[in-house]
């Protein structure tokens, strides 16, 4: 096997790609909102947490799987829109630092609501656990969820690309993320564009919630927080201002996380966050504007 060195096996590789795919979706979700609002949504992880809890409750109440997933989408979308109305809108004109801290506050609030309502031990999202069973692909056993994650991520990214390039809403969103003020002057409705971005971002959070809850099974109030921090790092690494670099950045850090988690021996894997974040620092020092952006781009706005 080519990947035999570093005791990297195909299943580990597949898990890395799958995690990379989910992180890429989250990266796009965070990047879209950043594009139109200049707002880094730290509470994105809590949207995913809420979706995962919806799935867990769905399976507890004996919903069929499609109904649980629908319920998850409903909860995440509802929460996204609520967040937009209550927090993003009133703060839209404020400095990025204030908005970031505000989303920090929302994250803290939602996490503590979950802690108060569901307890620290969390719930099990059991009904989709069958997807952890492996598929035999040419003699290599790969978890179903890994294949599904990759397929779902690729599908979502293609649909999103079509939405952004082929529809009026997508055009408006791209215009708004280039220059919000000028876009408004030219008659683009700010609220509609922002709502569009928030809803698409929420949909991506719901998809990520389904994928992550299958992989991690137990849903606790801190579910998704660490993932969000990593994705944020990945997004900044890739280059926050443009969707494709941001996606690549998210994918890279998810891939690295999945691979290293599988490859490192137990006594070193506890230092996995240190390795990842050390790499983040090094990359930021070498390419502060992002790994996948062309040098000499526009000055950073935040």
């Amino acid at each position: 096997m080519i990947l035999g060195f570093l005791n990297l096996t195909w299943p580990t590789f597949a898990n890395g790609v799958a995690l990379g795919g989910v992180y890429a979706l989250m990266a796009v979700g965070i990047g879209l909102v950043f594009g139109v609002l200049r707002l880094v949504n730290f509470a994105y992880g809590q949207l995913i947490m809420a979706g995962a809890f919806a799935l867990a409750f769905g399976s507890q109440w004996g919903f069929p799987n499609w109904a649980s997933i629908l319920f998850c989408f409903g909860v995440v979308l509802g929460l996204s829109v609520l967040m937009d109305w209550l927090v993003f809108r009133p703060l839209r004109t404020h400095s990025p630092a204030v908005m970031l801290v505000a989303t920090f506050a929302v994250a803290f609030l939602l996490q503590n609501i979950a802690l108060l309502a569901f307890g620290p031990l969390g719930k099990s999202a059991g009904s989709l656990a069958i997807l952890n069973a492996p598929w035999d692909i040419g003699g290599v056993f790969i978890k179903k969820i890994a294949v599904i994650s990759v397929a779902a991520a690729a599908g979502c990214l293609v649909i999103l690309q079509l939405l952004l390039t082929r529809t009026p809403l997508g055009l408006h969103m791209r215009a708004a993320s280039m220059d919000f003020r000028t876009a408004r002057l030219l008659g683009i409705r700010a609220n509609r564009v922002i709502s569009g971005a928030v809803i698409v971002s929420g949909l991506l959070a719901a998809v990520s919630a389904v994928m992550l809850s299958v992989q991690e099974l137990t849903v606790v109030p801190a579910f998704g927080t660490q993932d969000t921090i990593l994705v944020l790092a990945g997004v900044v690494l890739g280059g926050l201002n443009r969707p494709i670099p941001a996606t690549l950045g998210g994918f890279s850090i998810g891939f690295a996380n999945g691979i290293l988690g599988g490859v490192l021996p137990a006594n070193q894997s506890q230092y996995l966050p240190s390795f990842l974040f050390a790499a983040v620092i090094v990359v930021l020092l070498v390419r502060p504007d992002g790994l996948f952006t062309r040098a000499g781009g526009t000055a950073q706005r935040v």
Partner: protein
Amino acid sequence: MSAVRRIPELLAPALLILGTALLGLEVSSYLQAYFLDTLVKVAIVIALYVFIGNSGVLSFGQISFVALGAWTAGVLTVPEDQKRVTMPGLAHFLLTTNVGNVASLALAAAVGGAFALLVGLPLMRLSGLAAGIATFAVLEITSNVLTYEQSIGPGLNAFSAVPQTTGIWQAAVGGLICAAVAYVYQRTRFGRMLRATREDPAAAAAAGISVYRQRLLAFALSGALAGLAGGIYVHLQPLQAGGLSLDLTFITLAMLVVGGSGSLLGAVVGALVLNGLFSFLSAATNTVDVFGWSLTVPSGTAELVLGLLMAVVLILRPAGLTGGRELSLPRRRRPVADLEKARATT
């Protein structure tokens, strides 16, 4: 004239800290724990203010210096026979070195400052979100290593048997030192230069100010104060140094922003108000009497109210409760006042 007017700028924060300490002496020892905790939080938030407030750069990394300070003061004051039991993997140097209370605090500040300087050397070149994420990375790495590395401390366990020397006075003196250092710093030319870079980096650089050097100085100073606060914290209660991470970052940042990150007064007011409220609600989970009316709230309410309050303050008053201003006496109306104003508002 202006010197007299400026007296309350340091006096107001100092009196607030002293008042909290004096109030803490009056209450029962059960409630005193909350006052001690609040005084430590004041010190931490002031340390945050020195860098974030003056430079306008958001840093998530300052709590890692608190953690390092706590680690330094903790690992150097646990008695050696205790270390052999609770930290069997400890490196020889750390095992045999023991210092007193004051020395451990001084070393905590020194280690915090030195580490901040070291980290800041490369990191202060970054700005904006890249700086935010990089400081976040520092926080994650520090807490990860402190949590799992058995050769430097108790790892996942809290430091036990650290002499609990932090009483009301030690906590208050710590807070006062932080406030005084922060005040003196912001009055020096270095503080003013950094504030100039906060308002307009390009103009400041054009005036000959090295943005990098000024930020680095404030970062290191803030790290030293954070280290001191961490040392005081570990002498107050058993702490797991690696656990001083995301939650504490969040809470202290919230205090700074709610109080008003632009002023020393804002840092102190934010810490007192939020931690006061937080303590009150935490105490209320075991029933408190408010003017003869007994109040019990379910546990977790404190965090909930804190998050809600912070969101509300940010939405309604984004510059914070103090609006980022120091307290100063009203100036007399004179023609010269305009000139004064231009100077005083920087």
